[in-house]
């Protein structure tokens, strides 16, 4: 099994631990990743705040590269990237004039037909039976609050994934591997995403609410599939505790960290030792 792979800037920057985790976990499942050649940034929040055409053209360039290389299915583990790719793809697929214009702008023909997958969808493609078969350890010590944040399920017309108000795909997979996910209220609330640097107070307030709700519902860790969620809940946890006089001590794992643990991979191979809050 092979997927094209669009890492995005975060996974090649300070969220390199996410890339380690995804690569180690998928390799252990016999899944190969083929990185998109000379990919460029998807434009993220900045492009759609400042320039609509750029917000289409930047992700479109990557869709065009995938199309040129004959790649039909591409994993984008960062939900911000995957949403920008999906949004551009849908706009292009439905508008011939836009396709022509954007193809000229990005210097390659682009039709928007590449299928973009998030990390959970890749695990679904692999299939729970195959993952269970490869598992060597039960996750029964883990009571995760599965946190989807904004962009994995929203807007539903664009991402067409899970239920946008009550998603359950992470819980379903982790339960099969022995974990005991908790029921809680903040599955799809926002952590502040890309405001980390521009306006930290927003992130601290939102993330404090998420961590508090997870803790009060009996979670002993949080599971995410987004580099921004991970940074805001993990790296900023000390700042949240300081600002709100809280005592959060919740490790924040990527979904691939927990699946990797079930497969018997150690924390160093998964990059878990690079997180800020470690298990006590």
């Amino acid at each position, binding site marked *: 099994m092979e997927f094209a792979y669009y890492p995005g800037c975060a996974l*090649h*920057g300070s969220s390199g631990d996410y890339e380690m985790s995804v690569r180690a976990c998928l390799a252990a499942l016999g899944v190969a990743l083929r990185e998109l050649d000379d990919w460029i940034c998807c434009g993220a929040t900045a492009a759609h705040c400042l320039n609509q*055409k750029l*917000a289409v*053209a930047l992700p479109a360039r990557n869709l065009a590269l995938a199309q040129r290389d004959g790649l039909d299915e591409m994993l984008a583990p960062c939900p911000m990237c995957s949403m920008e790719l999906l949004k551009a793809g849908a706009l292009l697929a439905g508008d011939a004039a836009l396709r022509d214009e954007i193809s000229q702008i990005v210097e390659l023909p682009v039709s928007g037909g590449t299928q973009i997958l998030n990390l959970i969808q890749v695990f679904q493609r692999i299939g729970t039976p195959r993952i269970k078969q490869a598992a060597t350890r039960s996750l029964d010590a883990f009571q995760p609050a599965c946190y989807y944040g904004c962009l994995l399920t929203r*807007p539903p017309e664009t991402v067409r994934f899970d239920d946008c108000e009550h998603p359950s795909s992470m819980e379903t997979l982790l339960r099969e591997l022995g974990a005991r996910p908790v029921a809680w209220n903040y599955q799809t609330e926002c952590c502040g995403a890309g405001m980390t640097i521009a306006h930290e107070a*927003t992130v601290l307030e939102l993330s404090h609410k998420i961590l508090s709700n997870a803790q009060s519902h009996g979670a002993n860790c949080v599971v995410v599939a987004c580099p921004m969620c991970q940074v805001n809940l993990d790296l900023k946890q000390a700042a949240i505790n300081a600002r709100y006089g809280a005592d959060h001590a919740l490790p924040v794992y990527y979904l691939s960290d927990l699946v990797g643990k079930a497969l018997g991979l150690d924390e160093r191979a998964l990059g878990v030792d690079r997180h800020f809050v470690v298990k006590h």
Partner: protein
Amino acid sequence: MDVLPHRLIGWVQSGRIDKALRADAIWQCVSCMTCTTRCPKSVDCAGVIDALRQLAIQRDAASPQQHRTILFQRAFLENIRRNGRVRELELIGAFKTRAFFGDLNIPLLLKDALLAPQLMRRGRFHWFSARVKDRGVVRRIFQRCGVSAGAGNGRPVPPADN
């Protein structure tokens, strides 16, 4: 948010665009898509907020309280224009310097500096991250979208109506 999304949409519908462009809310919005998803009338509220942000920049109408956020978004875009991908250190450096000359706020200038050694210890700090090979195509894409060099320097981004 000083104004909630449904009210912003109401202002736009009733032609009070200038009022909407000055709202802090359009820059406090984290683009979480909740309003778009839950709108009972299927209005793409987050899309409208994006359009308001773009207009606010073009018309230089944004609330002065929000200049830091705008500076960050511009520095982010300029970083992509130069490198094809985000280089975090360069982005944070450019943003902090410009923001500092805007409000001379020393604690904010230094706030994230303490994070660098912690990221280094965890192998998550990169002095130089890879840039794309074909940076020419990235610059041409920006040009064709009406964004020229220095758009990150605080000047308004020209309208993209070519």
